[in-house]
């Protein structure tokens, strides 16, 4: 395999007592769209700032094209970053902002003008070149920030919550545009986000961070369907995490559920928990045997395309159950329901 574009080796960073990054390893190949997903304090922003050169690791290496970037100041690093606040220079016009990086490189004026116009066209901001940032809408500012970073034609672009400050309606469209720009430019994107929907929708691979550790890395579908740990399972899509003991016959005996979970494959011997996604659980009157259970509906929340039911099980667990609209109106609160799921929906968790 060829050298990855960016390679992180054993990155360690402490802020006083707290460990922001805990010996983290990660490879990012050229042209990949990688999402760093994690809650606040997971170390995802620290990771980004370390790659950009604003923080120095306490231990470990950041390799770009196999070259160690230790001691290379931010302005000499061959990559660019888009800030969460956009960080547009308020005293410069849109084109002044976009041209700033090219000026620092000493790009001749004619080429500079051409590239600035090209970058503005790429993000759909033709005709805004003479505006000052405070006279732009939030979405337009986001585009200027993107154009300013991309005009330098970096092979790696770091994006810190690029959609975080946008209205919900604008977010989906801008997300698709981000995806298209990434394909068009061929640059590798590393996007930090706390929004699992964003990460799953946009990225080629999703890296889930928890307390400075990389807990799972893989294509969105794989991470979603086969979460590795309790944290990933509940953080992505709010899966039910059920604790129990292996029953010796390939199933996990769950006292809180009042039943047994049996995965399709063999159950790893030391498993103490399994994940079960809400949308994989169905109401099936009369069902019995393994991978079924009965409970009482505590709450019903209508969500548009489906309803979310909270079902209290005899053992005390409260299961989140998705009820699709095409299956009719969900039973009212207080009714006893029989739940069933396929063996393939049961995911043994490793940690």
């Amino acid at each position, binding site marked *: 395999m060829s050298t990855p574009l960016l390679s992180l080796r054993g990155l360690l960073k402490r802020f006083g007592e707290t460990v922001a990054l805990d010996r983290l390893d990660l490879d990012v190949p050229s042209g990949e769209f990688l999402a760093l997903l994690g809650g606040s304090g997971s170390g995802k922003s620290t990771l980004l700032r370390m790659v*950009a*050169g*604003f923080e120095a690791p306490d231990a470990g290496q950041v390799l770009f094209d196999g070259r160690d970037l230790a001691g290379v*100041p*931010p*302005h*000499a*690093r061959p990559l*660019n*970053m888009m*800030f*969460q*606040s956009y*960080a547009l*220079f*308020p*005293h*410069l*016009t849109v084109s*002044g902002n976009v041209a*700033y*990086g090219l000026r*620092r*490189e000493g790009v001749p004026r004619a080429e500079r003008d051409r590239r600035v116009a090209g970058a503005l066209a790429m993000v759909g901001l033709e005709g805004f070149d003479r505006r000052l940032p405070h006279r732009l809408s939030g979405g337009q500012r986001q585009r200027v920030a993107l154009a*300013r*970073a991309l005009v*330098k034609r970096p092979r790696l672009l770091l994006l810190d919550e690029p959609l975080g400050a946008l209205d919900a309606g604008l977010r989906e469209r801008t997300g698709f545009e981000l995806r298209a720009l990434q394909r068009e430019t061929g640059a590798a994107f590393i996007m930090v986000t706390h929004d699992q929907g964003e990460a799953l929708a946009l990225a080629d691979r999703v890296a889930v961070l928890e307390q400075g550790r990389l807990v799972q890395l893989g294509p969105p579908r794989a991470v979603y369907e086969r979460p590795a740990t309790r944290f990933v399972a509940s953080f992505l899509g709010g899966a039910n995490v059920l604790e129990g003991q292996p029953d010796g016959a390939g199933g996990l005996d769950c006292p809180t559920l009042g039943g047994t979970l049996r995965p399709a494959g063999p159950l790893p011997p030391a498993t103490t928990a399994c994940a079960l996604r809400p949308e994989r659980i169905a109401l099936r009157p009369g069902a019995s045997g393994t991978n079924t259970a009965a409970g009482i509906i505590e709450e019903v929340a209508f969500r548009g395309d489906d309803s979310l039911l909270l079902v209290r099980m005899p053992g005390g667990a409260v299961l989140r159950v998705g009820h699709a609209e095409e299956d009719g109106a969900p039973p009212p609160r207080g009714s006893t329901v029989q739940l069933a799921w396929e063996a393939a929906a049961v995911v043994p968790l490793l940690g």
Partner: protein
Amino acid sequence: MRRSAFPRLGLLLGLLFLWLPVLLLAGYAFSDARIPFQWGGFSWRWFVALAGNERMLAAAWLSLRVAAGAATLAVALGACIGWVLARQGPFRGRPLFGALAGAPLVLPDVVIGLSLLLFFVLLEGATGWPAERGATTILLAHATIGGAYAAVLVQARLATMERDLEEAARDLGAGPATSFATITLPLLAPSLVAGWLLAFTLSLDDVVVASFVSGPAGTTLPMVVFSMLRLGLTPEINALAVVILLVALATAGGALLLLRGVIGRR
């Protein structure tokens, strides 16, 4: 319309309270009478007399030079202090440093003047400099006070300025010096100009501190005016006030236009 009458009346009274004495003073500058507050018909004679009063003109010129020098030094000093306080994060002794930097804001002028006098005398005894107290010592004293004000302005500006901006400049290929010159400095300019004007004004109208640290060689305009008060006033003072007022208005207006230009051009 009735609703807006009260605020307007308040505004009018407020403006009158602030400006009536000044307008009276300016009006009597054009009076022909020998006493400042007696109307004796229109005349330019006090402006003419002022133009011939070499002692006062020399003092005014000295005051302007001291004020300009002190303001420039104060801004340089204040920018450094403000930068350290706003950007260098926590360091040992930071609270003490912050308190000391702001001390001239709250210390009475008498205390500042006396302490600086003692300091200059000791310094002269130890190093032979300053050989005599005068314009230089006044300038240094005023720079100390003005620097505290400039530091507050710079620090406040930097505190509201996103740090991201400097980092974004670094990320786009600007070294620390370039980032400072192209991003930080232009954004800091309004507070630097404001700090300069404030320090300039403070220096121009200070009597107390200047009296402490000046010697026979340095008599600033406020000191001359103050001594004239004891000898008896003439409308020359009014004429001088009108000139100062016009200069001040022109300076403030110029600064305003300058700032608009700086912001509008980019």
